[in-house]
């Protein structure tokens, strides 16, 4: 029979012993434990440029994206979508994005949800425009910060990816993204979002949506390359980003961004 004091001692030793292998794994690279930031050294930093003057809301990009990235065609989630904004002369703002504009905007009626539609007369409209949206591949991505298992991570060239094999499906990243681009994949049940078609761009191809846009409203480029046409536009023209107040440093730039765009 061991006495109590000894027992306690042994327990403490045992726990300490158990903790060692765990600690050893962690000590190897403490930097890895922090949210991975895109490296300064990398020669590539992917950025996106959207020209809202050119977008007509045809939705071909949305369709192409769904096909390319195997997002079930009829599921009401999408990696990229297009929003329609209508500002009336009375100063009222209407906006919608039925089915993410997968089929374009086929009616002039604005979808108010819950089965209601609003018809706005042409003469009442002050201005109207379309705004495509996608993951901003933020420089300071809150989705990476909050993921408890590191399933969402950032590559050296700035793209934020999700590891479908490791994601536990807690949804914390969905909550943390200020742009609402994330969702659960209806088949894999893991966090899903636009990844700039990483499998394509790393092979020198354009993303599916850029390829599909007949009006050149979407462009992808490398901001570290001064001769890239996208870089030239971003550095020389007036471009804007969405919700800069969150400090996420989004890397999708917009030409002709209106203050009405949320």
């Amino acid at each position, binding site marked *: 029979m061991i006495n109590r004091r000894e027992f306690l001692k042994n327990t403490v030793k045992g726990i300490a012993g158990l903790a060692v292998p765990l600690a050893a794994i962690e000590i190897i690279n403490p930097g890895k434990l*922090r949210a991975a930031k895109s490296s300064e050294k990398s020669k590539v930093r992917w950025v996106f440029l959207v020209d809202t003057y050119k977008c007509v809301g045809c939705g071909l990009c949305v369709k192409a994206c769904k096909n390319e990235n195997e997002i079930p065609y009829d599921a009401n989630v999408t990696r990229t979508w297009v929003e329609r904004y209508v500002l009336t002369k009375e100063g009222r703002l209407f906006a919608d994005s039925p089915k993410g504009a997968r089929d374009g905007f086929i009616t002039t009626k604005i979808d108010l949800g819950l089965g209601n539609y609003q018809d706005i007369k042409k003469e009442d409209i002050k201005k109207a425009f379309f705004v495509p949206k996608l993951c901003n591949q933020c420089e300071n991505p809150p989705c990476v910060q909050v993921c408890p298992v590191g399933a969402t991570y950032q590559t050296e060239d700035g793209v934020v990816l999700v590891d479908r094999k490791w994601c*536990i*499906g807690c949804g914390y990243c969905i*909550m943390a993204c200020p742009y609402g681009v994330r969702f659960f994949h209806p088949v894999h049940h893991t966090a899903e979002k636009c990844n700039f078609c990483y499998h394509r761009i790393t092979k020198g191809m354009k993303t599916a949506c850029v390829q599909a846009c007949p009006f050149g409203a979407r462009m992808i480029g490398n901001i570290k390359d001064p001769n890239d046409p996208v870089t030239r536009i971003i550095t020389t023209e007036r471009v804007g980003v969405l919700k800069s107040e969150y400090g996420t440093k989004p890397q999708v730039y917009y030409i002709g961004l209106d203050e009405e765009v*949320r």
Partner: protein
Amino acid sequence: MVHGEVWTLKELFVTPNEYIYWSIQIVMYPFMTGLVAGAFVLSSLYHVFGIKELKDIARFALVFSFALLFAAPMPIVLHLQHPFRGINVMMTPHFTSAIAAFGIVFFSYGAIVASELWFLYRKHFVEVALPLKEKKDKTLLEWIKFVIFCTLTLGVYDISEESLKRDEKAIKILAGIGIPVACFLHGYAGFIFGSVKANALWMTPLMPVIFIMSAIVSGIALCMLTYIVTMELRKRFASRNKAPYAMHHQSREEIKSVEIHVIKMTAKYLLFFLIFAISLELLDLIFRGYTAVKSWDVLRSVIYGRDFTDIFILQYGLGNLVPFILFLTPWLTLRRAVIGVILVLFGVFMMRYNVVIGGQAFSLTFAGYMHYHMPIIPHDWETFKEGLGGAVSIFIMPFVLFWVFAKIFPVFNVKESH
């Protein structure tokens, strides 16, 4: 069907991927964790600060806290899209994430409660195990009992006066460490929400403190409720003079007077923490209105418009004001206390609900709304676990566990010094 689509209704301008992703289980999660923390703080009030009046409920609260502890992570597990991967959080903890801290805090807290329980019941284990060891022909039941209690002693059979003194000291220390850890456990549950900068309703540094205060309130309330229920049952048994209750030699009247006394004392602490909790919540509300940043327009429309009933009538009115009056009116009776604590529990639950669901009631566009329709009648596993059924199961779980644990850790009539 996309996750969340079944229970989300969208109105006006909502972006396509937005749904109520965190549904009732994420309401249950801070609610249950809060009960754990609250029950522990209640028990520590006696062990650490030596508040004698709480002695009877302290032991009870500790065992209950342990039972609740097992139920607290269940909502998260039920909510995960890949529950079997939950262990990944331990294998690749990502320390920038508030959820990743859960495992660490939770297990250290669990270890504290378990060791405190062990010290508290060590004598009892020995007293049960030793005679059984001596006994020659044990029945099967006695064998099982013997094995369980023998294991629980962990090979330590020393119950001399001196060693019990040391136990007492250990309990005091553990309870002392336990308080900050319990607060941390729940404070960081608040942090999970408070640090989501994308959510205008959650984003406030007050969130952890608000959560801790209401956690203590709910924990005390639940302990009071369970205490009353258990005492009533004992009263019934005592009046029928049934074994094994009769052997404790407590008459019905004795139990009754102890009961109302304990309840009256505990109610004071309940009120004290309730005042704190409400003030903090009101401060948060007033502050938001006063500073009125960009999101205030949509928040106001949700708080004072769409969720008015949930927030002001159910949470503040029914859940806070009414029990306040019930407890403050002199000559507190048991019946009044029961109604009061049930309402308090309901109020805290509504607070969690209004934070979690209310925080998702508006779109990131600040121009649209989402309504949550909790699935009541399940038609598949998903709608069961994220609906009424899942929530109720989680709520029942600690009571069942408590019933089991109370067989091993008797909560009443243990004649001991501490």
